[in-house]
């Protein structure tokens, strides 16, 4: 059972993600949070192993955004190894560079169709990112079309 966190302030996007995850054959346990502050307070109480297998992180969120969360996660010893996949509306160069620099594992542009979303979620779940080095910059952004 893979433990998945999704931090996204958009209710529709959270619902799409939840529905897409149900279509994936891999058994999962999903925790949904609606901003960075909620994500970090959820992660703080992760004291009993296992920690989440993957955090899907939106960038533009109120109160605490994705960049801040990523930095905090990478600077917190007990959280720093958790794979973080950026899940954002656009892949502009600045955001991609910044999140790569701060140690995100992959970057996904939210797909424009439900089928592609399922494909994206499924692909990420099958990646072996735990304690693996960051991919090369060219392989950082995952494209689904």
């Amino acid at each position, binding site marked *: 059972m893979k433990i998945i966190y999704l931090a996204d302030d958009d209710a529709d996007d959270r619902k799409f993600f939840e529905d897409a995850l149900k279509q994936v054959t891999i058994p999962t346990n999903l925790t949904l949070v609606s901003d960075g502050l909620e994500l970090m307070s959820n992660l703080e109480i992760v004291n009993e192993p296992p920690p989440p297998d993957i955090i899907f992180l939106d960038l533009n969120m109120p109160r605490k955004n994705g960049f801040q969360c990523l930095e905090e996660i990478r600077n917190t010893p007990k959280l720093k190894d958790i794979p973080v996949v950026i899940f954002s*509306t656009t892949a*502009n160069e600045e955001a991609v560079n910044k999140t790569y620099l701060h140690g995100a594992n992959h970057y996904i542009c939210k797909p*424009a169709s*439900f*089928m592609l979303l399922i494909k994206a979620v499924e692909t990420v779940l099958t990646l072996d990112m735990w304690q693996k080095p960051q991919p090369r910059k060219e392989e950082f952004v995952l494209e689904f079309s």
Partner: protein
Amino acid sequence: MPEYKLSETIKELAFQMEEKEKRDAELVIANKELIFQNEEKEKRAAELIIANKELIFQSEEKEKRAAELVIANKELIFQNEEKEKRAAELIIANKELESFTYISSHDLQEPLRKIQIFSTRLFAEESENLSANGKKYVLRMQDAANRMQSLIADLLAYSRTTTSERKFEATDLNVIIEEVKNDFKEVITAKQAAIEVGEMCVALIIPFQFRQLIHNLIGNALKFSRPDKAPHIKITSRIIKGIQAKAQNLLSEKEYCHITVTDNGIGFEPKYNDYIFEIFKRLHDKEKIPGTGIGLTIVKKIVDNHKGIITATGELNKGATFDIYIPST
């Protein structure tokens, strides 16, 4: 008194008399001369007075001019400052416009994506509840949403050509062309297109922008191909002097990298040579040939960013040629 002495005295007197008369005559002449000289001096003095007055007048005029110049100068300085202010305001307004384009395009993507996802789910998951017409409407809706997506993507690409950093690097155009060919490898195979690349020069360019430029030109050449003819695209480049170029507005002694992209596609009527570079301008029904009308505007913008010139020449159903001239140093 002896007689001889008298006559001597008379002689002497006569002589003295003559001498006096001579002196008198000389004095008269000298006097006349003096009078003349005096008159001349008075004339000179009068002339000097006039000249002096003239000089005073000129001096005053000069001072007036100087004062006027000081005023004119102040006016110019003021105008210059005003112009600088306007220029600074324009730069700010431009930046605002650029960031507005960027932010609006970015933020528009989010609701659009929702429309796309809901419509794909509506079609996939609620299909049995939809009539044939209902399904058709959903598909039309998806088409429209997809068109809007490419429009936003192109607008973003366009705004990036103005907002992004402009770092010029000496770049091998062959590398860029190879990368772009790779972008299109599926279309190239499907349409059996031939892309002929001549000897390419190394050019001083903004690499990622030039990649976009070549991408758009090759993309267009592949898109606007004739249905009955496999696309044949020729790309050449060479260094020339401005004077050797067909295009106007080039410095005759300056060296330019002249890049030509020619295709054998559907071309266009010569009257549209300039029109095709304008934003959102299209020559074809979007149902038949998709597109946003931004591609060549981006190309033009990128050439502008390189301080270059681009011209398009087309002939209907024969093909199109794009000539690009960018300074080689």
